[in-house]
């Protein structure tokens, strides 16, 4: 073990080198080595930047293997239960070297990134085609820097290094988003993304500035022990909420998310949605629980309300969107909302000194973060396949792909059922835990909160049910029914690398679903670190009973086994007692003689009930045909009200302010010199 407290940087470098050379058991060094491995892979891609074969078939699979290593070390850090490991790097500012730390919290997020990242990398190895935007080598560089920077964000143990990694993550993902930069709407989406990322980063910077508490120590250790007055603690919390909320896409800071995610190539969308949003969750947990040690229940109430608002908002908008990747992006807002709901509850309970219930809520949030990394990546990757096979993103032009792309359809079905929160898959388990934590809320000392909790549960229930609606629309319109365009008949299925990536993620969805306790042990290590408690684990391993078996228990494995048994018996009985004859014929459809694929519900049609029920939520433009129209045209455009109410006024205000400042900025050197001279005079006058 290294001593983090003292010593010049050079000797630390020697220590690190010795650790690595002597293969001493120091997981953090190994972790660092793996992260450097990602950077190295990115760099050697530049040797042959235009060779797709070299970059895709060689480097991306290697990146996947490194991902597995990261996950393994993260898992070891979680479950081994030894003290946090720290390390100093001889880099950074003169009096502030880079601090690194591997504890249960960062271990969990590294596990998440490694496992899901491995699946995405394998998929990406088969995905990228030549001639699509940026050269493969450059793409590989950005991709691996992105992965490495996300890992460094969770490893960072001082504010400076954290911000460096955070910005690296924002920039590398920006370059990935605009990899098809020839299209103006993609450049625009990239700009919005960069803007929001920097506003968020600015808030974080201020937050850390407050957190150091006046003693100018920027390591997290110093912040942990700093004393904050209630006012400044709340300021730091609010700034962190703004900063991390902007990255996570919490309402009303979500504006960039539905623009940037669809613009990026699908594996990048998967990484941004599945992994990058989780760094914001990590940051929120690190600041709130670890650095600030939760102080006020009001913080929890705020996060809870924001989380629920985001969840409902995302679900409603996903219901009316007709672009498949945009739909998934809104669904990400919904899922992030669910995660923050769990975090909000956990803060609330912790502030009210109910650590066991806080552990339950936090476990639900963490498990949902892990689940979301699996199923959302899976679905984004599947849309990538659909995009490659059909060149269409609009749901209105798809349909019937299940017959031409059976692999993608089958694996996407797993993701669809998981994200819809259906047992026995993983999405259900985390939503079940979240509902349990709402439900078993004991009487809290605050009557206001006591009212908030059941109402929150009601919103949660509505959101979860809406998510199922959205996913039936997503899957049904893309993969089921008849092809809406003739060109779809010869869509091609995924290649074997892509299938492997999809299957890996689908396997994760199933495994966590039937044996959730494996994942809950991992989240338990985190809750033990942050709250000092874990939920109770039932035995044997296929049961979960977070509070007590008498109160609530669930077993995905037995549920699956029971269903398969009943289905098997029913199948055999039907075959034995009746028969198995089938006659293939034309569809019946109440005897209507001919029907075309245009008669199926479109995505707009499927969204109609949502538009009808939640009408006031939308900024809607509709163009309906008259019965007398010769060429009837139906057009509907649904916009986000917040866009017009929040984003545009701010943009206009900024524009006005910069116009006003622009008056001063004439572009003539003499004028600028005059300004400096006047400023100097003014300063002198002030001094004298």
């Amino acid at each position, binding site marked *: 073990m290294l001593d983090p407290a003292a010593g010049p940087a050079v000797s630390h470098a020697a220590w690190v080198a010795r650790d690595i050379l002597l293969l001493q058991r120091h997981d953090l060094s190994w972790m660092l080595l793996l992260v450097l491995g990602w950077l190295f892979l990115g760099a050697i891609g530049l040797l042959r930047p235009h060779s797709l074969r070299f970059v895709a078939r060689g480097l991306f699979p290697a990146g996947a293997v490194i991902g597995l290593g990261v996950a393994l070390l993260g898992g070891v850090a979680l479950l081994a239960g030894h003290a946090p490991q720290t390390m100093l790097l001889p880099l950074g500012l003169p009096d502030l070297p880079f601090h690194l730390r591997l504890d249960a919290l960062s271990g969990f997020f590294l596990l998440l990134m490694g496992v899901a990242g491995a699946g995405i990398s394998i998929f990406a190895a088969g995905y990228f085609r030549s001639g699509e935007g940026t050269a493969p080598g450059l793409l590989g560089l950005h991709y691996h820097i992105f992965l490495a920077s996300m890992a460094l964000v969770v490893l960072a143990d001082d504010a400076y290094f954290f911000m460096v990694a955070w910005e690296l993550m924002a920039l590398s993902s920006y370059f990935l988003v605009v990899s098809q930069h020839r299209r103006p709407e993609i450049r625009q989406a990239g700009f919005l993304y960069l803007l929001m990322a920097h506003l968020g980063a600015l808030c974080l910077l201020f937050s850390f500035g407050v957190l150091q508490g006046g003693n100018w120590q920027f390591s997290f250790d110093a912040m942990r022990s700093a004393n904050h007055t209630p006012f400044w603690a709340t300021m730091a919390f609010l700034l962190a909420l703004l900063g991390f909320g902007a990255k996570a896409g919490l309402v009303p800071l979500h504006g960039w998310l539905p623009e940037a995610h669809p613009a990026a190539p699908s594996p990048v969308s998967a990484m941004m949605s599945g992994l990058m949003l989780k760094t914001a969750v990590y940051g929120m947990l690190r600041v709130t629980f670890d650095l600030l040690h939760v102080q006020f229940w009001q913080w929890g109430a705020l996060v809870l309300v924001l989380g629920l608002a985001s969840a409902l908002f995302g679900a409603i908008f996903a219901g009316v969107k007709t672009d498949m990747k945009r739909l998934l992006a809104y669904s990400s807002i919904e899922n992030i909302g669910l995660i923050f709901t769990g975090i909000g509850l956990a803060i609330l309970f912790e502030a009210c000194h109910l650590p066991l219930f806080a552990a339950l809520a936090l476990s639900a949030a963490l498990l949902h973060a892990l689940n979301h990394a699996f199923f959302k990546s899976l679905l984004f990757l599947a849309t990538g396949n659909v995009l490659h096979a059909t060149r269409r993103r609009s749901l209105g032009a798809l349909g019937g792909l299940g017959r031409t792309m059976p692999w993608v359809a089958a694996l996407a079905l797993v993701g669809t059922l998981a994200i819809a929160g259906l047992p026995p898959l993983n999405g*259900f388990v985390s939503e079940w835990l979240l509902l349990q934590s709402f439900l078993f809320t004991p009487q809290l000392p605050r009557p206001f909160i006591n009212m908030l909790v059941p109402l929150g549960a009601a919103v949660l229930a509505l959101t979860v049910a809406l998510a199922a*609606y959205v996913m039936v629309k997503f899957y049904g319109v893309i993969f089921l029914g008849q092809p809406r365009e003739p060109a779809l008949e010869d869509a091609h299925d995924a290649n074997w690398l892509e299938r492997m990536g999809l299957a890996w993620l689908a396997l994760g969805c199933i495994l966590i679903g039937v044996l959730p306790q494996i994942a809950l042990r991992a989240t338990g290590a985190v809750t033990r670190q942050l709250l000092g408690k874990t939920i109770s684990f039932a035995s044997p391993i296929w049961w979960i009973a977070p509070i007590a078996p008498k109160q609530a228990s669930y*077993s995905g494995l037995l549920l699956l086994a029971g269903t398969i048994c009943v289905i098997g018996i029913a199948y055999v009985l*039907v075959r034995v007692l009746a028969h198995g004859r089938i006659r293939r014929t034309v569809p019946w459809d109440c005897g209507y003689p001919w*029907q075309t694929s245009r008669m199926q*519900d479109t995505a707009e049609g499927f969204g109609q009930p949502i538009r009808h029920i939640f009408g006031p939520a939308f900024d809607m433009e509709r163009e309906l045909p008259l019965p007398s129209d010769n060429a009837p045209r139906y057009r509907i455009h649904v916009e986000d009200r917040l866009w017009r109410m929040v984003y545009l006024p701010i943009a206009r205000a900024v524009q006005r302010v910069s116009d006003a400042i622009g008056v001063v900025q004439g572009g003539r050197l003499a004028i600028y010199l005059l300004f400096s001279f006047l400023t100097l005079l003014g300063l002198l006058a002030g001094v004298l």
Partner: protein
Amino acid sequence: MVRQFGEVLLAIALAPLFVGWIAQCRAWLQSRTAPPLIQPYRMLRKLFHKDVAMAADATLLFRTTPYVLFGSMVLAAAIIPSIATDLPFARVADAIALIGIFATARVFQSLAAMDIGTAFGTMGARREMMVGFLAEPALLMVLFNAFLLSGSTALPSLVEAYSAEPISLNPSLTFAGVAFVMVLLAENARIPIDNPATHLELTMIHEAMLLEYSARHLALIEWASSLKLFNYACIGFALFLPWGIATHGADGGLALLLAAAALIAKLIVFGAALALIESLSAKLRIFRAPEYLATAFLLAVLGLLVHLLLGS
């Protein structure tokens, strides 16, 4: 284990009879000649012996869905304590997971209805999912009322907690009870949301999804639908009328027989009441369905608030 299998077999056997009983009551109330009680069984028998006629491009999803539906409803029947609370399988899923099982069945049915790509099938799927996403939160809120009173989400513990207490009219449970009946009608495709006896395709919800099914597939789906109604009724009994269910420790042979008799008596009364409600109300336009279900949802939430305010 015997109890478990007995209960499941009883549910499978009684479910079509329950549907037949409701149809009989409805016929009487409408001054028609009633079909015999075992009419649903004759129907099933006929369907099982027909040849399946299936659209040429139906996929595996379409063919497996009837089995999935039947399987999940049987599983649900194994979890709900209809005659006894000491069921080995009941621990597998609590009431929230039970709603999850129903949701799985609904999603599979909707996806299967979209599989062939007919106009009516997709329309039915959309409507079914709409009713589903409105009814599911209402049902959850109803259950929350019961959970708050008993401190458990497991149905057997709920029943045991209730049957230990003296009979009293609990204000929050009264709200929840009304909401539950509303949800039951909507979820089981009955008037006022849907009409099980309709022949007008444009007003269909549940039936529109089944248009492409025939023979044994249709039989399995019909059986699953009757099981779903039976299961909902049993959830209702467990929440609001738990008397007679053999509790842990007092569930010998005689107690089980008595429990079965009590269950049948409750089903007879409840079936007649359902038929009465259905005969007295008219089918709502589909646009009104959200209001109907929102009412159920708000009633259940009101129940929760009443519980919190009164502390009872």
